[in-house]
């Protein structure tokens, strides 16, 4: 059942009116998702997160949404906006070119309430691929006091270090949509990030972890993860390069 409310406070000469549809679901009370509709005034620069916060401020403060930095750095405000996973703080309402903006919680993540989802599984799979340098010595014990790296060696993995763990890639992945045990593009891209790091010595350990039936072989290169990544990580590339290495195509 949809309910409609209008916020008049933000009207200006340059503002535009859009309908913001927010998915409401509380697993403890509700049996199904309902959408509430709000008529909001937005400017050219208004982000979807700002529109949601307007609704919270002016009408319904019970809308559950997770956010923090508002600048696409913390990865907290991932949600499905008009059918596609995006960061709400990084998506302007005007760029959607639609008079109706529908926001839903990310797919393939259990819902806590409304737009907020649980990240346990993403953090578990991230941790599973050992996202840290593995080696016997450390920068403190080695003679050189630091692990030197050339700019070319850095280029091999720096792109994949931009991951903010927002979960958009896992939400867009078609394998994640049906396979509850799949490691997921986020963790696989991070596995590549450390395998490609010249300072790391844990390659064999990491490859053993992802070389399983619900591991890297479940990726079918649909590329949706890379299309929704807000930081340019390109998980699909990392996964294919890693698989190429495992198949012997690459050294």
């Amino acid at each position: 059942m949809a309910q409609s409310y209008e916020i008049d406070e933000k009207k200006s000469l340059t503002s535009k009116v859009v309908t913001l549809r927010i998915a409401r679901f509380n697993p403890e009370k509700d049996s199904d998702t309902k959408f509430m509709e709000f008529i909001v005034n937005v400017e050219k620069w208004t982000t979807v997160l700002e529109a949601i916060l307007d609704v919270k401020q002016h009408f319904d403060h019970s809308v559950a949404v997770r956010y923090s930095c508002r600048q696409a750095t913390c990865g907290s405000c991932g949600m499905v906006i008009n059918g596609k996973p995006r960061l709400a703080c990084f998506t302007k309402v005007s760029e959607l070119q639609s008079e109706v903006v529908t926001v839903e919680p990310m797919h393939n993540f259990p819902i806590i309430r409304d737009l907020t989802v649980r990240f346990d599984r993403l953090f578990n799979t991230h941790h599973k691929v050992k996202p840290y340098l593995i080696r016997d010595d450390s920068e403190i014990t080695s003679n050189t006091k630091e692990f030197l790296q050339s700019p070319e060696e850095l280029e091999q993995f720096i792109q994949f270090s931009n991951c903010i763990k927002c979960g958009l890639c896992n939400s867009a992945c078609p394998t994640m949509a049906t396979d509850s045990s799949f490691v997921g593009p986020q963790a696989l891209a991070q596995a590549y990030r450390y395998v490609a790091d010249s300072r790391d010595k844990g390659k064999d350990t990491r490859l053993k972890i992802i070389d399983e039936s619900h591991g890297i072989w479940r990726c079918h290169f649909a590329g949706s993860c890379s299309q929704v990544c807000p930081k340019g990580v390109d998980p699909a590339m990392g996964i294919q390069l890693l698989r190429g290495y495992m198949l012997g195509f690459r050294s």
Partner: protein
Amino acid sequence: MNPHDEHKEGIGGMANPGRYGIERVAYWLMRLTGLGLLGYFVAHIYETSNILKGRVGWEEFLALTQTTEGHIFMTLVIGMCVFHTVNGIRVMLGHGGVGVGKPARPDYPYLPASQNARHKMGIYSAIVLAAVAMMYGMAVMFGE
């Protein structure tokens, strides 16, 4: 179990090709043609097993493929076979890390290097070649 427990998109979300560009369309077509060819494989085994019924039984069953419906079915099989083969080569190369670009510092607007023009051309080529093969097949079968 409550469907919201994991909030999975399910097969409907997996099969929806409309949101993520031509790469997701290719992913969907690859699965669809794979299932179609599997169905054809089973049907083909059944068809050839009719030879056990002798010459008359074999020719009776073979006559089914000479009908308009049979020709349309074979045209679809040709299309599925060509698309699955050509796109399969593209995907296999991609799985080997071939043609997916090189890691580099990303610049806004962060266009993914793995979704590059070579792969898009591979997908469009598979679709075009499948269409051409289907047209040729129809010309041969219906032109008899």
